[in-house]
């Protein structure tokens, strides 16, 4: 692996990474708005559909000059959006399906035209479809005295155009992405923004062809913004993160394209595919580790919540046993909890351990007893529970034997204010519907 990286050539590999970063950031910048507008597949559709635009440009000019290519792509990009809209609107076909009809047809036409064009023009269909990033540094132009790959210049210009677009229309894009109705009432021309965005997606897709190819444009268009979306709730931060993720995937993609296959004894593979894989890898990390919306943090949150609820149930149960107990026998044999609460023994051990650790329950010679703090907490829970029962019975049509289960769930999310409100609404009762005393309010000692 290390040996394979020793062949790193700062000029060649440096430019490949550079081109990759330019391409990925130019795409990801626009992709943010596609993801937010729920139009990711429109990006996919347009990047497939610009193929006939390119092919017609090739056939007409018989060369690979940039301007007709971009013009053709922009026209077809807008046409894709228009046709999809027409088939959806006039034909009343589901949006996804109308998109599918349009882009596959245009792609098929493009494929046929490309094969025809290949007879006249020096053009490799494979290159159009999955890019030839490795060869981009070889085709250079001179800009202000520097020798720069032609693709880098094109992508740089497109990136600047995209940045200008987002900077100028930031407010409009933001509002129309999150609240299209509000945007319309504020006088923002949502249709114009839509078609401008689609045009730029098409132009960016064309500029990216030589780098990552037709199909993998979607990878840099959608994956970095989708990953960023998992990490933040703010648009400005999401855009910044998506650009960073895009740039890192370009770098990581090229390095792994050289070093990855070497692990298995093969030579380097195409960078474009590995950029998509690298972006996917970063996406998986974001999905798993995202601070608020990540799968793991949601799982942890879920587990700790259900743990807290179960522990509170144990606490309340200990209080109720204490309440019923006559004389001095207030402590409980742990195993009795299993039968009373239908707990599995390992789970009960876990919960009791948790409560002891938190200082809410004490172990006394193999028996469990509430500490003072635990008793206060439990008393508040039971108070909430019984107030809820009274309230539900009075104000809802729940039957007396049904209020317990509702109260059992509500007691865990009842804070002092809510408890006070319940108390007021039920005229400060002392007895619950089942004839048990409602304990007085206690400010907990922490």
């Amino acid at each position, binding site marked *: 692996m290390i040996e394979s990286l020793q062949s790193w050539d700062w000029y060649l590999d440096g430019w490949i990474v550079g081109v990759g970063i330019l391409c990925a950031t130019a795409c990801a910048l626009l992709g943010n708005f596609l993801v937010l507008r729920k139009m990711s597949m429109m990006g996919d559709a347009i990047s497939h559909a610009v193929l006939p635009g390119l092919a017609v440009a090739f056939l007409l000019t018989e060369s690979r000059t940039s301007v007709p290519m971009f013009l053709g792509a922009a026209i077809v990009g807008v046409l894709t959006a228009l046709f999809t809209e027409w088939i959806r609107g006039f034909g009343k076909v589901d949006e996804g399906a109308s998109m*599918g009809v349009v882009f596959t047809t245009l792609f098929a036409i493009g494929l046929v035209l490309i094969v025809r064009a290949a007879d006249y023009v020096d053009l490799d269909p494979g290159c159009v479809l999955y890019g030839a990033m490795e060869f981009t540094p070889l085709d250079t132009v001179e800009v202000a005295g520097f020798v720069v790959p032609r693709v880098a210049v094109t992508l740089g210009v497109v990136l600047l155009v995209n940045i200008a677009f987002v900077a100028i229309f930031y407010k409009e894009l933001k509002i129309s992405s999150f609240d299209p109705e509000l945007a319309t009432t504020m006088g923002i021309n949502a249709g114009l923004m839509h078609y401008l965005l689609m045009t730029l997606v098409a132009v960016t897709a064309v500029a990216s062809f030589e780098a990552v190819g037709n199909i993998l444009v979607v*990878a840099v268009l959608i994956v970095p913004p989708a990953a960023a979306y998992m990490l933040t709730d703010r648009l400005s931060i999401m855009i910044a993160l998506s650009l960073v993720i895009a740039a890192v995937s370009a770098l990581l993609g090229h390095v792994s394209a050289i070093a990855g296959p070497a692990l298995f004894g093969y030579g380097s593979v195409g960078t474009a*595919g590995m950029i998509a894989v690298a972006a996917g890898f970063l996406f998986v990390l974001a999905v798993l580790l995202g601070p608020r919306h990540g799968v793991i943090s949601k799982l942890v949150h879920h587990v700790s919540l259900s743990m807290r609820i179960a522990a509170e149930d144990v606490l309340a149960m200990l209080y109720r046993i204490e309440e019923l107990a006559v004389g001095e026998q207030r402590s409980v044999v742990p195993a009795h909890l299993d039968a009373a609460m239908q707990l599995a023994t390992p789970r009960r051990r876990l919960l009791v351990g948790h409560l002891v650790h938190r200082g809410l329950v004490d172990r006394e010679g193999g028996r469990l007893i509430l500490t003072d703090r635990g008793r206060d907490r439990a008393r508040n829970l039971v108070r909430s529970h019984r107030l809820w029962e009274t309230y539900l019975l009075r104000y809802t049509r729940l039957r007396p034997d049904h209020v317990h289960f509702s109260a059992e769930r509500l007691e865990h999310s009842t804070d002092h204010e809510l408890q006070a409100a319940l108390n007021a609404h039920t005229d400060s009762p002392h007895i619950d519907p089942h004839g048990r005393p409602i304990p007085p309010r206690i400010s907990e000692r922490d």
Partner: protein
Amino acid sequence: MTGARFSAVAIAAVVLLVLGALWTSGSLHAHGPEIRPESADGTLSGSAAEWPSREQWVRALSLRDHNTRVVVLGVTMLGLASGVIGSFTLLRKRALMGDALSHATLPGIGLAFLVATATGITTKSLLLLLVGAAATGVVGVAVLLFLRRYTRLKEDACLGVVLSVFFGAGIAVLGVIQQLGTGSAAGLETFIYGKAASMVPGDVVLIGIGGILVILVCGLLFKEFMLLCFDPAYSAVQGWPVLGLDIVMMALVVVVTVIGLQAVGLVLIIAMLIIPAAAARFWFDRMLPMTLLAGGLGAASAMVGAGISAVFAKLPSGAIIVIVTAVVFAFSMFFGPARGLLPRYVRRRILQRRIGRQHLLRAAYELLESKGGLEEHTPRWIAFDELLTKRSWSLRRVRKLARGAQRAGQVELNDGGIALTDLGRADAARIVRNHRMWEMYLITYADIAPSHVDRDADMIEHVLDADMIAELEGLLSRPVASCR
């Protein structure tokens, strides 16, 4: 019952096709397997620009070549199966899921090829490649469902992520395969664009088995799938395993995708899943005929497309099939009787004309009424100028409507105006009655001010049928407390 009938029809079609394929393969073996009369570089001398001769057209379209016959039969069955399952995924609003799935098959194909090479199994083993394709395709769908269920990402973003990342991985694996130097990597690229011409009889049998499986399951689960498409919540309440049915449906999409990879390629197989079904939707509102037609359209356009690509050997067959299907779609979108643009437009025009004529009759009737001319037996002429005061309509429109009413025998027409015939007077009386009864109803029951009811009644008078009128009569003859 529908399911059984459906299965019978569809399976009969596939069995016929498979018999055809077996017969073809038999005769192919009789001639020796090396007979490939229309190899890409032979007759067309490498230039697709040259228009094929008439003889080449006849050869291809009459299926005289065994190779063409094999290919055409194979893709026809594929079209049939994909049209049928596509109808369900379309109505389940899962059309684009096939897109993610088909892209996700690429790494599987590559990995299966690597495994085959490493373990020394014959590298052309199609079945192994397809098993690999199905495996990663299923993983792709599983990832998709996971992302949609457990993250905040919307369906579209999940699809985009899955299809691009899996496809990228597939491209990377193909990059590794290219270094093996066996030259077989080029063969794998046919899975991306499709090359129906490389199909052999064994592949056709494979497609046939897959197609029968798909259609059989669709037939058996017809009612369940239909319920799932139209009302998944109700079907869950009824106790159907919604998730299980969805999984079966996606599994069938996997089967069609995998058997179609070789013929049309993974980018365009999605078109065969979506377009015939979307086209059939314009023809029928009922599920069974729509599904059968989707299968038929898929089969027919695949057959024609394969025929054409047999002539233009250099053009990718998948693309040609898709273009033919798209033409069928465009035709259906304009002319399909159930939801096509033209029939819908015609129906609307007919309704508008009828409404206009009824307006004319009512205007004439009300003018006569105000002048006390209703009791006379001789027709009394009403000038166009008078009619123009009744509504905001142009003289041109009134004349046009009058001509229509004349053709229907409702009015007599001269340069200056119209006169109601007996038929016209009866029709007009009915319309005026409808109008006024609805006004009464709105005033009495809907508490709408009398000055506001005219316009509402104006819209509803044209669509009141006999039952509705009878009900209104009943309601209005009853004494009402709130009547003013």
